[in-house]
């Protein structure tokens, strides 16, 4: 390796690291400027005391948990069934789960608004509960590519067929097999999918804004247009939560078995 290549390598790396960390530093520094002349946590104090923050944040947390529950209920049985009984269907299912990466979220929610409006056959947007359900389903779709891939990778590391047959010969039904055999075995994978879902939902803007739900993302955008320092403090909090979730994924995936089982 020549000296020039080394210098170029270091230059690229340092430039990239500056690119990542300077904006984070800038954000944090700015969020401390609320009191003139000195750094303080005033903006944080004001934000945390804002009842709207508490309401929207709680809403988004609940939404994330509901989304995770729906995601697990849909993805785990499907991925299990495909591995066990219909391996030929795997490319098709995988294709469907990757579609949300191709179709922009704004188009999906546009479709919801037109398809499930008050004059349609399933007027979900007509009531608060219906809109909440629709939003949770939409989030489940957005998280589908990540959730499915995580669970499918987890299933690859266990011997699904043998476990199922063993459980069946001991008299277990499908619910028992899924809930007490398969799920505990892939729990690390499910958790990493769940944390990623949480990170996606907590700051999501487009769906919540267009379905007009009081979530954290739209609140952050709205306050950004009206307040000077609070949105930056909120962004730091959002960053911390997201990165916390993703750090948890790293932690959880350490516990995951990585050696693939025999087919």
């Amino acid at each position: 390796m020549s000296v020039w290549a080394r210098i170029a390598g270091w230059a690229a790396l340092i430039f990239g690291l500056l690119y990542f960390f300077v904006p984070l530093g800038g954000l944090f520094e700015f969020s401390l400027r609320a009191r003139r002349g000195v750094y303080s946590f005033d903006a944080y104090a004001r934000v945390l005391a804002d009842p709207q923050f508490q309401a929207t944040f709680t809403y988004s947390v609940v939404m994330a948990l509901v989304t995770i529950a729906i995601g697990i209920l849909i993805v785990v049985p499907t991925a299990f069934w495909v591995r066990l009984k219909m391996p030929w269907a795997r490319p098709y299912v995988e294709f469907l789960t990757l579609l949300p990466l191709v179709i922009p979220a704004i188009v999906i929610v546009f479709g919801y608004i037109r398809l499930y409006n008050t004059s349609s056959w399933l007027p979900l947007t007509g009531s608060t509960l219906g809109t909440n359900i629709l939003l949770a389903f939409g989030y489940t779709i957005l998280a589908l590519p990540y959730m499915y891939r995580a669970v499918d990778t987890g299933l690859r590391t266990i011997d699904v067929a043998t476990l199922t047959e063993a459980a069946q010969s001991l008299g277990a039904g499908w619910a028992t097999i899924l809930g007490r055999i398969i799920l505990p075995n892939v729990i690390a994978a499910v958790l990493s999918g769940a944390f990623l879902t949480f990170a996606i939902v907590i700051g999501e803007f487009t769906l919540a804004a267009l379905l007009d739900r009081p979530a954290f993302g739209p609140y952050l955008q709205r306050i950004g247009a009206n307040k000077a320092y609070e949105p930056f403090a909120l962004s730091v909090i959002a960053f911390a939560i997201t990165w916390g979730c993703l750090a948890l994924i790293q932690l959880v995936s350490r516990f995951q078995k990585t050696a693939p089982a025999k087919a």
Partner: protein
Amino acid sequence: MNRALHTLRQRLPLTWLGLMPFVIFVLMFLVLPTMHIVIGAFQTRDGTFTLQNIIDLNTGTIPSSYWISVKISVASAALGSLIGFAMAAAVVFEAVPRWIKSPLLTFSGVASNFAGVPLAFAFLATFGPVGLVTLFLRNNFGIVLQRDFGFNILSFWGLTVTYLFFQIPLMILIIAPALEGLRREWREAASILGATGLQYWRMVALPILFPSLLGTFALLFANAFGAVATAIALTGSSLNIVPIQLFAQIRGDVLGNPNLGYAMAFGMIVITAVANVLYIWLRMRAERWLK
């Protein structure tokens, strides 16, 4: 053979039922809503078939918004590819210590998912009128970004620079495995035949990497094209890009024609779909060398 046929006839195939919850869910909340938009793009208000909406995309501010969107996506994808490639090459070819690679890849996995409203504020706090870097340059070097470079965070370049925050890590994530697929033997074979480093890159490495590079570029392009939240939080409605215009259209039918809105959304799907198909196709070509 006969027995297999027999059991097949005896038991009705019901295994497909296990997939039904998933298929129905995806149909109802992904496929049908999208189809509704696509079909609506080819209909008049009273439901007859027409191509007028697609033709009408060429009116008013719509063509310019597509053009700005495409330019931002191309700029952020090109710069993201270039910087990401340089960083990935630095760690894969060990120009920098080996231990940096794993944390960098982990970090990239995190940062590539990080679009959205907080990202916009991070860049506003850094490169905005009173941001950290803006003030630093002004107080220490007398450089005013706005005056000396015409740089404004609420503009084309501002948005491009912000998008790079998630474009660079995405490039690193995807191109690092491709770079690792370059065998040491190829390089050795080339140098035994008398090739210089530059010739090796020009005639061996780059042609092998070309499908990966182009494919990743397409993916980065689609990624930038669909980003909504960052753009809205950063520029409000001052920059007329497709997602922002579509957002306004969904909120309040600013185009005055719902079906024209469908056509705009359809245009978005077409562009991101073409970019993604290109990515998948080029990836399959690239994998021929990575076995």
